[in-house]
């Protein structure tokens, strides 16, 4: 069946892209009738073999809408160490990595975030595609190597195959355009020492699951694979993403400024195209 051929090709593509982050692409062994718990156990075993995932809402907390208004554009928020903003940046409980998993999606690992050790990121909000009713998990790794998990549930369907790309308003910015928006300090919700910004990149993030009706071939997957945000020499965060990230990947985050006054974004997609943007962020406009 073409569907499975398409998915197999997609899995292979994702496998290649995942080697760097150390994860094998998952053609998940999910039986059609597997319960949600069994599905998660299988994913967790594959992603974090022989490791305990503890629950601690002060380390990692996942925020999702209960029901997705638009399955192709579901806002997801990750809160890291957010109950204690004064936690020293080098405290062993500081989160250094977050894996976002949408259990029932064809490519369940939606994104892996690496957090800069000097940036103190306590919030990242992005938008994802949700293919069917699913549990969502965020697994955080702290500086001391421990793993913590937060679980949520989203009711939605059809996000991964929704037409995209050419539904963009005619005359919109070209593919690869990056915008950096600094949020004015009076509107930043987290603690005053942190700044907040939005990094967005114009990109169809094609899933490879849409069929060209004329040729009956699948439009090849082309999605933003890596995106890195730095201030001067310091990493704020980096993300390795997949097809579960919505069209026009969008990341809103807070961070502790290092005073460099500038933010740099570097991104690359699966076609090998690279994108970059330098932005002056302080003072915010």
């Amino acid at each position: 069946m073409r569907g499975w051929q398409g998915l197999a090709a997609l899995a292979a593509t994702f496998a290649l892209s995942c080697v760097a982050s150390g994860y094998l692409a998952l053609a998940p062994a999910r039986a059609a009738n597997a319960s949600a718990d069994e599905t998660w156990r299988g994913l967790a075993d594959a992603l974090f073999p022989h490791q305990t995932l503890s629950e601690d809402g002060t380390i990692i907390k996942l925020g999702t809408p209960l029901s997705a208004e638009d399955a192709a554009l579901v806002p997801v928020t990750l809160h890291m160490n957010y109950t204690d903003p004064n936690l020293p940046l080098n405290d062993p409980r500081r989160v250094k990595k977050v894996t976002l998993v949408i259990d029932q999606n064809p490519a369940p690992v939606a994104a892996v975030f690496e957090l800069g050790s000097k940036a103190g990121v306590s919030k990242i909000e992005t938008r994802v595609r949700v293919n069917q009713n699913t549990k969502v998990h965020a697994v955080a790794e702290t500086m001391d190597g421990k793993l913590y998990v937060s679980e949520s549930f989203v009711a939605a369907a059809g996000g991964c195959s929704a037409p995209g790309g050419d539904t963009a308003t005619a005359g919109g910015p070209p593919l690869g355009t990056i915008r950096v928006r600094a949020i004015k300090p009076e509107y930043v919700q987290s603690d005053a020492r942190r700044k907040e910004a939005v990094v967005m990149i114009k990109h169809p993030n094609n899933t490879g699951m849409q069929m060209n009706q004329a040729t009956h071939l699948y439009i090849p997957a082309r999605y933003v694979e890596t995106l890195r945000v730095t201030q001067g020499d310091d990493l704020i965060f980096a993300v390795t993403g997949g097809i579960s990230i919505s069209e026009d990947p969008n990341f809103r985050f807070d961070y502790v400024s290092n005073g460099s006054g500038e933010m740099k974004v570097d991104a690359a997609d699966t076609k090998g195209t690279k994108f970059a943007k330098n932005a002056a962020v302080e003072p915010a406009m």
Partner: protein
Amino acid sequence: MAKRRTLLTALTLLGITLIGAQCPASGENAPIAPLPVREIAPGVYAHQAPVTAMNAASGGDIANLGFIVGDDAVAVIDTGGALVIGERLKKAIETVTHKPVRYVINTHEHPDHIFGNAAFVAPGVTFVGHKNLPRAMAARGPAYLATWRRVMTPALVDGIKLVPPTLLVGTDKDVRLDLGHRIIDLHAWPPMHTDCDVTIFDEKTATLFTGDLVFLQHVPVIDASVIGWMKALPALAKIPAKRVVPGHGTIDVDWPQALAAEKTYFTKLTQDLRGFIARGADINQAAKEAGQSEASKWQLFGVYNPRNATAGYAELEWQ
């Protein structure tokens, strides 16, 4: 000679009667009640669907449908949210005319407008739609069937076949169909409600079928571009229609007054969204609060407004 002619005539009449008789398709046992339709202009018929959600209770009958009868043939406009709705529409056509259906036009890809298509598949029937419609149906069809099978019950959804158009309308050129001394003009729009919206204008009576480019009572649903939709409203208003059938809500309404309510909604919603974006409010807050001043004017507002706000926020962020 006279006797043979009489016999021939009798046999011919019998033949015509048999051909004309609308025998139920094999496999159908229960008689199908025709969908109620109203002749809103000579030869133009429309079905007023209830303004409600698509679920087991509504049985998929939530979108306005219609058909236009020419001297030679009939054009159908949308087929409903279940196979049985398409079948009931077909029955309604047959109670009104013996002329064959030649065209089935889908105004866009949403399930409440296309799920009844298979009821009309027959030799001589051409399915018509926006050039983007086949792709949209291929991309979303399986997910629609899976979702609605769950929401509406398997009985209503099993047997639905997705039938894409073969006659495509491009945005560069209208398609004009002749139903026999009756021209209907099909216009394909840039992304607005969806990325495959088509409107149908009956030149004889100046009746305009807008599909979901016009909503009344039912809150508008933004599935492609609110900016594109607002930009195109003046062009839509310029169509010299005497009456309009919207995709949802009261049929046979004056034009262009029918546009006023949704124009106000889009204006208020986008104003609110621009404010949220400028103030740095995030998409979740916007989904909860944008457009709320319009809530009392629309049905199903709580179901669709947060979605419209989410989609609109993501679109306006790039402005």
